[in-house]
């Protein structure tokens, strides 16, 4: 087995990550309840994206992985965003 660098994340670190995630969840629920105007949806999605990034980086260990994997994951999300964007060129201009 070559280049095996498994950084082991401590339990403490895992708890911290969880706490942050729970906090963000609470935030998004609150944001909805408080109705921060036109940006509510954007905010909810933004918070979700932050959460997803955290899960990817820490729980899924992307932080410690080969660079190529990080590039791939980034690329895949970008690709999906572009596809949605292009579809909306149709729907927004009808």
């Amino acid at each position, binding site marked *: 087995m070559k280049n095996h660098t498994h950084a082991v994340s401590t339990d403490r670190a895992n708890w911290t990550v969880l706490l942050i995630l729970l906090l963000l969840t609470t935030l998004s629920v609150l944001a909805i309840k408080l109705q921060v105007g036109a940006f509510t949806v954007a905010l909810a999605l933004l918070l979700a994206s932050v959460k997803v990034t955290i899960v990817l980086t820490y729980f899924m260990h992307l932080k410690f992985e080969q660079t*190529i994997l990080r590039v791939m994951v980034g690329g*895949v999300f970008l*690709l999906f965003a*572009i*596809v949605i964007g*292009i*579809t909306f*060129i*149709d*729907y*927004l*201009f*009808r």
Partner: protein
Amino acid sequence: MTYTSSEPLNYLNHKTGLWSWLTSSDHKRIGLLYLYAITIFFCAAAILGLLMRIEKMAPGQTIMTAQTYNGMFTIHGIIMIFIVVIPGLAAVFGNIFLPIMIGARDVAFPKLNLFSWYIYIFGAILGLYSQFANGHSPDTGWTFYVPYSAEASSNVVIALTAAFVLGFSSILTGLNFIVTIHRMRAPGMTWFRMPLFPWSLYATAWIQILATPIIGITLLMVMAERLFHIGFFDPALGGDPVLYQHLFWIYSHPAVYVMILPAMGVVTEIFPTFSQKPVFGYVPIVFSSLAIALVGYFVWGHHMFTSGMSYESRWFFSLLTFIVAIPSAIKVFNWLSTMYGGSVDLKPPLLYAISFIFLFTIGGFTGLALGSLATNIQLHNTDFVVAHFHYIIFGGMGFGFFAGIHYWFPKIYGRMYNFKWAYISWGFLFTGFNLLYFPLFVIGIQGMPRRYFDYDPKFQTGEFLSTIGAFILIAGLAGMISNLVYHARKGPKAEANPWHGVTLEWQVPSPPPHENFDEIPVITHEPYLFDKPATK
């Protein structure tokens, strides 16, 4: 190499019996399993194609009812697209040669590889079954457009499941190839020392894994629509039929590049070998493959120009469609320059490869006529489209495949086919092909719609010529297939490197031994150097 016995052990004979084939995780054997399955399905669908041509010889009903005809082009399209050409080249030649060409003993996940073959067979059989189950075949066209496909009282759900299952097999193959290329290259084989066929497979594999899931979920939604009346696409329930078309083409346009990219990879191997000259423009060819894969992902809307899309997205998609033609152009010019100044030997593989260029150019330029907004209005859903994609799929991917099989045949079987026989079959194939599809361009421009069982007598000349072409084509195909099938067992023994190729597959014995290499080779320079040995 130390093989001395008269029949050296190789991947074909080191174990025998049907069972040893059906359970083998050897990439070469799996490749052959795909080859045999695909050939059978191809012949089945081709015969349907012929029957359709006979039906269209004259206006009105000739040999079948409208119902049968509609079912027939549907199943012809489904088999050809989902069962033959999408898996086709990658699964056959990719499996057999990818590991050898990058100096590996096998793919990254051999068992998964065998598993994808079984999924493929399961999907394919399901696809055929959908044709016969309950006494009538699905008749939606291979595009399954809603709302018709959500209402038509036929075996659409089975056909959808088949396409779904086949997609899964395609994903697993693509996944396997990407990991193989990333992790299993021989020592010294940097990315830019990798031959171009593996490069084209790499680009293809990304499309396979990133586009196929979209069709998967789309087909699931159509099934849910049919089974539970969910209403994603049914306007009566608030659904949106045009959204279906978006989803369908988000997959199916990139899928056309899944068909053509490996074929381009194959001919890119053939030109240097038969000119004994390095590939011209290695780096541009690599990047054009990647560019086709990437930009090809964003042009799906060109299938929907008349669907009432917004004006903005129409011109946007049209513009991108034109951009995606550029990498193809780059490739064509590089192939020509590869031959230029070489020592060109017109053996059957090269003959097929240059026919590929000719037919692909015609198919590609008619693609441009379709991609242009004004002309698309006239041509959309006419026989012009039918001619375009037969030229580019059959003429491109098909002839690429034929080129590949003639090129690698001696490596796969260790025997040689008959050249004269091959040239004559080519003559019939090529003539028949052009006679079959060229008239469709003409009547397409005049307005003959596709998927028409019956037609206006003014189109008859074209339709009739086309049918004659189909008969000539058959003769060629039958000749080619029988030449290969016969000589696979009975042909004279071939040398290990009959064409003097320099990529790794030509450095191993023919047929290759079970684990390809006694010793994993060490690569010291770029591929395609005809004045240096490939490995140290």
